[in-house]
């Protein structure tokens, strides 16, 4: 049987529809608002250098017994967790009674060239955790680390566990040497010292170029072909452009921290193999004994599930929970399924453990 049965008339109709969408785009593209982000009001409760800790303001007073601090990755902006009104992890957590704070790392520049992982983890994160605890009037808080921020949160927990009640990791790489991990595969032939010594801070555009080359046709062509379908829909187009803004609104990476992260995590895989030190202090997943919830995305092309799953094998806690989400690295925050499934899962897990 023939694999393709495309009626020429139908092909013409398909082309006509595409062209009608293009024609409609003259109107919609001129009408779209300057896409903004952030659905939830927030206030800054702590600042240090370029780092700001915000507390989100819910409609009702939080009912959770301890605040939840979100530690995002350095490589993207944190507003992905509160992108827009109907796509907001934060908004849904607030509605469930959580008291949500977030670390905004800002945009590093030349002054941040020499920031190390010690500065980020033993410095900024530790002081942010202290600030949140003080602001909330508690001794211990809950920490939610996302992607690279999850790896940082694991290190922080190993080093400063006494400050935390519970740890949640989302789409967090733990074993960097699994066979599907393309990003890790590529970095292992790189001379990262030469790279950072030459570039200083690593430009955001270079990082984005690298991410796009993970799936060049899907991310650079197919996505924009699919955009044809929404060219006549102002709201959908704004959603699309908002996501585009987030994807490419990326900070440069502080050179020294980048060097250490590539060397110790991507190349050395020390979180799993051992031997990791942050600021001269040993980091061990085995030393983590507080409850841990590990959430990962089954279709994640940046952090494959195989990179997140091994956390359960290496962590010391006896209270370990794993949640596999049907979606991708970004869908886990913005898809309709994510809005229904992820915030309640986090809230219920925390509610059973927070004192």
């Amino acid at each position, binding site marked *: *049987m023939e694999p393709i049965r495309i009626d020429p008339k*139908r092909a013409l109709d398909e082309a006509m529809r595409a062209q009608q969408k*293009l024609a409609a785009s003259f109107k919609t593209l001129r009408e779209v608002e300057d896409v903004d982000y952030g659905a939830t009001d927030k206030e800054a409760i702590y600042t240090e250098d370029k780092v700001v800790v915000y507390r989100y303001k819910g409609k009702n007073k939080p009912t959770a017994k301890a605040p939840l601090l979100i530690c995002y990755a350095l490589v993207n902006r944190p507003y992905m967790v509160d992108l827009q009104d109907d796509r907001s992890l934060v908004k849904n957590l607030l509605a469930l009674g959580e008291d949500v704070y977030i670390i905004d790392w800002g945009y590093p520049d030349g002054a941040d060239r020499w920031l190390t992982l010690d*500065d980020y983890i033993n410095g900024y994160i530790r*002081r942010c955790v202290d600030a949140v605890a003080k602001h909330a009037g508690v001794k211990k808080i809950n920490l939610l680390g996302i992607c690279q921020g999850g790896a940082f949160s694991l290190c922080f927990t190993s080093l400063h566990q006494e400050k935390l009640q519970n740890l949640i990791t989302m789409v967090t790489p733990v074993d960097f040497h699994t066979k599907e991990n393309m990003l890790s595969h590529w970095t292992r032939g790189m001379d990262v010292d030469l790279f950072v010594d030459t570039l200083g801070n690593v430009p955001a555009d270079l990082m984005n170029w690298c991410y796009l*080359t993970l799936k060049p046709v899907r991310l650079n*062509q197919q996505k924009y072909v699919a955009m044809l379908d929404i060219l006549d829909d102002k709201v959908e187009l704004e959603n699309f452009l908002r996501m585009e803004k987030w994807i490419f609104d990326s900070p440069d990476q502080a050179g020294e921290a980048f060097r250490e992260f590539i060397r110790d995590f991507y190349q050395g895989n020390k979180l799993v193999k051992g031997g990791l030190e942050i600021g001269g202090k040993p980091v061990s997943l085995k030393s983590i004994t507080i409850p841990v919830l590990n959430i990962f995305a089954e279709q994640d092309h940046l952090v494959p599930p195989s990179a997140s799953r091994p956390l359960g094998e290496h962590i010391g806690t006896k209270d370990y929970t794993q949640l596999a989400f049907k979606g991708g690295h970004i869908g886990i925050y913005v898809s309709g399924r994510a809005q229904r499934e992820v915030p309640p899962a986090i809230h219920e897990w925390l509610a059973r453990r927070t004192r």
Partner: protein
Amino acid sequence: MAKGQDQTRPQNDWQAMSQQYWNAWNDATRKAFGALPEAAANKTPWHEGLEQWSRMFDAGRAQTVQTETVERLLAGARSYFSLLQTLAEKGAHVNADPQAWADAVRESFNFPGADAALLDNPLARALRELAGQGSKGFEQMMEAVQPAMREMHALLDLPAFGYAREHQEHYQRMGKAWLDCQHETNRYNALIARASRRAFEVFEDKLAERGEPGRQIDSARGLYDLWVDAAEDAYAEIALSAEFREVYGALVNAQMRVRQNVQKEVERVATDLGMPTRTEIDSMGKRLHALHRDAKNHAEVLPGLVAEVAALRAEVERMKAAGKPAAPQAARAPKKAAPRKSAKPAARE
């Protein structure tokens, strides 16, 4: 004769339909955009429609914030529209053979105006279209240094001597780094070309699977999406290979060596002109960072020390008030003893 008429009929039908399409397209755009210049008759109206659409934005009627969107969409949609046209033109003549379809799709990607260097290499085009500023900047820099590098090529292996030997050696290193970068770029491009070839093989396999009842492809978008799946599968196969890892690493390292050598040259010129260099700024930045970190550490320790001193003072005051000999008196004792101790050696002299 009747057979001959049958063979030309699909083509005639297509021409009639494309004219119908073209009229509808012009009507639609007139409604949306006002009067348009009459488009010249074109042999590839579908593709031309897309180009015309982009030219409307180029005419400055839209804001720049949308121009980037248009460019991105255009880059992706060109392939899709070319595929649409190929299907309409050739669909009637392609038989059930998956290879024939794969050939038709391959041909569709070589649309008019496409870079000849990227013929039959859609993955290379996808990578080229990424156009990140980071990579673009490097390509531009490579183009800029290319003429100078060509001139230096003959000098690369000559021994350096005399007053300017250090400079000569630097230029030799720079030239060798550039040649090495070219070599690694070629190796990388060869792997991407291999991935493109492999993509069409995977595409044929995927098409063959679609011959099963109920799995046939019935739309151009379906065919395009299947092609994308094939291209990504083939690319991942190559990109996850040990060879790719080695080549990718070598290319990145080679690019960095070129960049580093150019930086050194810029620094040399800056130094000659009495301007600050990146090395000097880095050096100052490093010192400032160390100071900043120390200051933060001290600032964190200081409140604790202040509190401890205050507590000790309060304790001393309480002890004084209670009439007991205060601990600080004991602490003062060694101070009194110190001069006596220091006097002893003098007495021995």
